[in-house]
C-alpha cells in the first residue's frame, strides 16, 4: 500500500514550519556575545581597557610586595606612568564610544550614561587607591604623594552631591528618621525572635522515612534533613538516582541529570541528619501517624560498607550479567560499579556468582577484605513518624504493545532505551545506532502515547513522553544533521513553559509532526519497521512508512504495586498512585511519580512539598 502523496505532504509541511528561517543569520556568539548584549557593565568598549588594566594591577601588585625598598621608587613611577597612559587611552576610547552611542542627544541621554561615567571614575579611583594601598602596606608612607599624583587625572569620585550620581546609586538612601524607624523595628524584632525560634525549631524525636532514592526521594530527604529533621532514605537499587540517573539529558534545558544529582549527593555527604540505606525495600507498614513501624528487607550486596571502590574485585572476573542500568542492552561484570556516577561509589555483586569459582576469585581479589560471600538478606524494623513514598515509576512494558511489534524487531525501542543509546555511559557510548546492525539511522519515527491515554493500557496521559520525544529528536538531529525525525502524535502536550521548547523544536525542518496514532507496525521485507496508520489532518491519508529506528514513547506506571499486604498501606487511586495524606492526614505522603505522572520539575516540586508535610506530621501538626 504505497501512498506517495504522503511524503509530499511531509515536505510541504516542513517548509511551512520553517517559514521564518533566514539562512543568512549566524548563531549568537556563545557567552561573550550574549553578555555583551545583556550586561550594561560589559556593554562598553572601555571595558576592554578596564580588564586590561586589572590584569596589570594584579600582576604588578605582588611584584611590588616582593621588590625591595630601593627598587620601589622606580617601579612605582613606571607603574604610575603605565596607569596614566592606560587611563588616557581608555578615556579616549570612551569618548569615541560615547559619541557613537548618543546620536539622539536628548537631555535624558545624559542620565543614561552615568553608569558608564561612573565606571570610568571607579576605574580611575581604583588605580589611585590600589597604588596608595600598595604603597602604604609596604610602609612607604607615600600616600600624600600618591594621591596627588593621580588626583589630577581623575574627577572626584566622592562627589555625591551630583544628582546623576545619586540616581545611579543602587541603594536608595534613607533619611535619618527613616533609618531610626527601621532600626527600631529591627530592635523590636530581635526581642520576639527567641519565642518564635522555639516554635519553629520545636524538637521532635520522630524520624521521617523516605522510600525510594530517585530524584524525588533524594530531594524530599535532603530538603527535610537540611531543615533539621532526622531522615532515613531507603533505596531498592544499589545506587541512588533512580530513573533520572539513567537519562541522558533533561528537557527543556538539555542538561545532564547527574549535574543536579551531584549537588544533591554533596548535600547528602555533608548532612548528618540523613541516613541512606541502599538495596533496601519496605516489606511491611503498621501503626499510625507519629508511630509507624516499618519492616524492611535489605538484599545482600556481598560487598560490605567498607568498600572503597578500588575495583580490584571487578578486574578479577570475566563473567558478565545483563546490565540493568542500560535496561539489559549490554552486559556488565558480575561484580561491578553499576555506573561511573554511582552513589554510593561502592561495588555490588550479582547473587548468580555465589557458589561459582568466580566468587572465590572475587574474595581473593579484595585485599582489604570487604567481600562477604556469606551475606544474606537481612530484615529490619524502623520506627518513624511519617512516610514519604517516592517509589517512582516503571516504564510501561513495551511487550504489551503487541501491535507495535516491540518484541519482533531490535530496531523498535522505547524511550528509556533511547536515553541509554544517547548517553555517553550507555551501551553505544552515546552514539545513536540501530540495535540490529549498529548502523546509523537515517529515518527515525517516534510514536507518542504508546500505551498511554489508552484504556487498554494506561488510561492516563504520562505527561513526559511528548517532551521526551522532542528531546530525543534533538539528540538525533545533533548527531545526524541529515537524519529525519517523524513524530506521530495525538496532541503534543507541552505544558506551561515547556511549550516554548516545542515551538523551538518545531523550527527544525527535519523534525516532522504527524497527527496520527499509528495502527500497527509490521516488519518489512528488508527488515525495517513499517508503520501503518492514518494521517488525520485535512485530506486523510493511509500511510505505510518504513523507518530505520522506531522509538515508542511509552509511559509511566507507578512502581509501588497496587496490592500490598501492608497493614497501614498508603491510600491509592485506581492506578496505584499514592494519594497525598493532606485530607486523611495519615502522615503518609507522595513525592514525585509515586503520586502521579510528573516530569522532573514537578517531581522535585512535589518532593519539596512532601518534605514540609512530613515535617508537620512529625512535629505533631
Amino acid at each position, binding site marked *: 500500500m504505497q501512498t506517495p502523496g504522503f511524503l509530499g505532504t511531509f515536505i510541504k509541511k516542513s517548509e511551512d514550519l520553517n517559514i521564518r528561517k533566514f539562512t543568512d543569520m549566524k548563531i549568537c556568539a556563545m557567552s561573550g556575545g550574549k553578555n555583551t548584549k545583556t550586561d550594561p557593565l560589559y556593554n562598553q568598549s572601555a571595558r576592554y581597557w578596564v580588564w586590561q588594566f586589572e590584569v596589570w594591577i594584579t600582576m604588578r601588585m605582588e611584584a611590588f610586595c616582593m621588590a625591595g625598598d630601593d627598587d620601589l621608587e622606580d617601579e612605582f613611577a613606571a607603574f604610575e606612568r603605565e596607569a596614566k597612559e592606560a587611563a588616557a587611552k581608555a578615556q579616549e576610547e570612551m569618548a569615541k564610544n560615547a559619541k557613537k552611542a548618543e546620536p539622539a542627544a536628548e537631555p535624558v541621554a545624559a542620565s543614561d550614561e552615568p553608569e558608564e561615567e561612573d565606571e570610568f571614575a571607579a576605574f580611575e579611583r581604583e588605580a589611585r587607591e590600589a597604588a596608595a594601598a600598595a604603597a602604604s602596606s609596604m610602609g612607604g608612607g607615600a600616600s600624600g604623594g600618591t594621591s596627588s599624583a593621580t588626583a589630577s587625572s581623575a574627577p572626584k569620585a566622592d562627589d555625591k552631591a551630583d544628582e546623576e550620581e545619586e540616581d545611579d546609586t543602587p541603594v536608595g538612601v534613607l533619611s535619618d528618621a527613616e533609618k531610626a524607624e527601621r532600626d527600631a523595628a529591627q530592635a523590636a524584632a530581635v526581642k520576639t525572635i527567641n519565642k518564635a525560634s522555639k516554635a519553629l525549631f520545636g524538637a521532635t524525636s520522630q524520624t521521617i522515612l523516605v522510600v525510594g532514592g530517585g530524584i524525588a526521594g533524594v530531594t524530599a530527604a535532603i530538603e527535610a534533613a537540611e531543615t533539621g529533621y532526622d531522615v532515613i532514605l531507603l533505596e531498592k537499587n544499589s545506587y541512588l538516582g533512580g530513573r533520572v540517573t539513567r537519562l541522558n539529558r533533561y528537557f527543556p534545558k538539555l542538561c545532564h541529570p547527574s549535574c543536579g544529582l551531584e549537588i544533591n549527593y554533596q548535600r547528602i555527604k555533608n548532612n548528618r541528619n540523613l541516613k541512606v540505606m541502599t538495596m533496601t525495600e519496605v516489606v511491611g507498614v503498621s501503626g499510625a501517624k507519629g508511630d509507624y513501624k516499618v519492616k524492611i528487607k535489605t538484599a545482600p550486596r556481598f560487598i560490605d560498607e567498607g568498600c572503597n571502590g578500588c575495583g580490584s574485585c571487578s578486574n578479577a572476573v570475566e563473567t558478565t550479567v545483563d546490565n540493568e542500568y542500560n535496561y539489559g542492552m549490554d552486559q556488565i561484570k558480575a561484580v561491578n560499579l553499576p555506573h561511573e556516577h554511582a552513589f554510593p561509589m561502592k561495588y555490588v555483586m550479582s547473587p548468580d556468582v555465589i557458589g561459582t569459582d568466580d566468587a572465590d576469585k572475587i574474595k581473593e581479589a579484595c585485599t582489604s577484605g570487604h567481600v562477604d560471600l556469606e551475606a544474606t538478606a537481612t530484615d529490619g524494623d524502623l520506627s518513624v513518624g511519617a512516610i514519604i513514598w517516592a517509589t517512582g515509576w516503571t516504564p510501561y512494558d513495551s511487550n504489551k504493545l503487541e501491535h507495535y511489534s516491540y518484541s519482533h524487531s531490535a530496531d523498535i525501542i522505547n524511550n528509556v532505551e533511547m536515553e541509554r543509546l544517547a548517553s555517553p555511559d550507555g551501551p553505544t557510548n552515546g552514539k545513536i545506532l540501530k540495535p540490529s546492525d549498529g548502523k546509523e539511522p537515517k529515518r527515525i519515527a517516534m510514536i507518542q502515547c504508546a500505551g498511554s491515554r489508552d484504556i487498554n493500557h494506561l488510561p492516563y496521559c504520562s505527561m513526559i513522553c511528548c517532551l521526551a520525544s522532542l528531546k530525543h529528536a534533538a539528540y538525533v538531529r545533533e548527531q545526524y544533521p541529515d537524519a529525519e525525525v517523524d513524530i506521530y502524535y495525538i496532541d503534543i502536550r507541552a505544558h506551561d513553559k515547556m511549550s516554548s521548547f516545542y515551538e523551538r523544536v518545531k523550527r527544525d525542518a527535519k523534525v516532522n509532526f504527524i497527527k496520527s496514532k499509528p*495502527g*500497527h507496525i509490521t516488519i518489512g521485507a528488508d527488515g525495517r519497521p513499517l508503520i501503518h496508520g492514518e494521517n488525520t489532518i485535512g485530506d486523510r491519508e493511509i500511510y505505510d512508512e518504513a523507518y530505520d529506528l522506531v522509538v515508542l514513547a511509552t509511559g509511566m506506571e507507578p512502581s509501588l504495586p497496587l496490592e500490598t499486604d501492608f497493614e497501614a498501606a498508603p491510600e491509592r487511586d485506581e492506578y496505584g498512585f499514592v494519594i497525598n495524606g493532606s485530607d486523611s492526614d495519615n502522615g503518609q505522603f507522595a513525592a514525585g511519580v509515586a503520586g502521579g505522572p510528573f516530569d522532573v520539575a514537578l517531581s522535585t516540586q512535589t518532593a519539596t512539598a512532601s518534605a514540609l508535610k512530613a515535617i508537620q506530621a512529625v512535629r505533631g501538626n
Partner: protein
Amino acid sequence: MTVPMPTSSRKYDLNFARWVRDNVAGGDKMNMCMQCGTCSGSCPIGTEMEDGPRKLFMMIRAGMKEEVLSSNSVWECTSCYRCVVRCPRGVPVTYLMQGLAALASKEGYAPKVENNYFSRYFWKSVELTGKTDERLVPTAYFFSFGLIEGIKRSLGNLKIAFNMAKAGRMHIGLPHRIKDTKGLKAILAKAAQIEDQKS
C-alpha cells in the same frame, strides 16, 4: 419517546451528534473518540474507505448528516474488530459502523450500495428459513445487480461453486430450515416492532 431524526434546514446540524448518541447502537461511546486515527490506521481495507471511522465520527460532531449517511465507509467494514480492540477510548467502532449502516439503510441513503443488498438478502434468508443459505444469498445478491451482471458474477464464481460441491461443502437441494419458522418469524417481527418504537 420517539425522537424524530433531526431534519434541519442547515447544512451543519449540531444536534445530529446528540441524535446519533441516543439512537445508534454504540452511539453513546462515539463521543469518546479523541481523533487519534488508530481505527482508520488499523483498518484492513482503510484505503477503500472514503472517510474511515475516525473522520466519520468527526463529521457526526460537525453535524454533517448527509455526508455521514451517504459515505461508503459504513459499508466497507469487514467486521475484523481490530479497531475495536485497539481503540484507546473503547469506542465499539465496528458496532457503530454497523449501526450507521443500518441507519443509512433505514433512512433510504445509499440504496445502490452492494453490501446493503447483501445484508438484505442475508436477512431475508434468515427470516424465511432461520438459516443462511450459502448458495442462495450470494446468488440473489449477484442477481440484484440486474440479470446480466448477475449471470456474469455467478459465472465468475462457478468454478468455486463447482469445487465446493465436489468437496461436499455445497448443500444441494432445498434450503435448510429450522422447524419452528413460524415462531422465529413472530420473534423477529416483535423485535423489529420494539426497535421501531424506540426510534
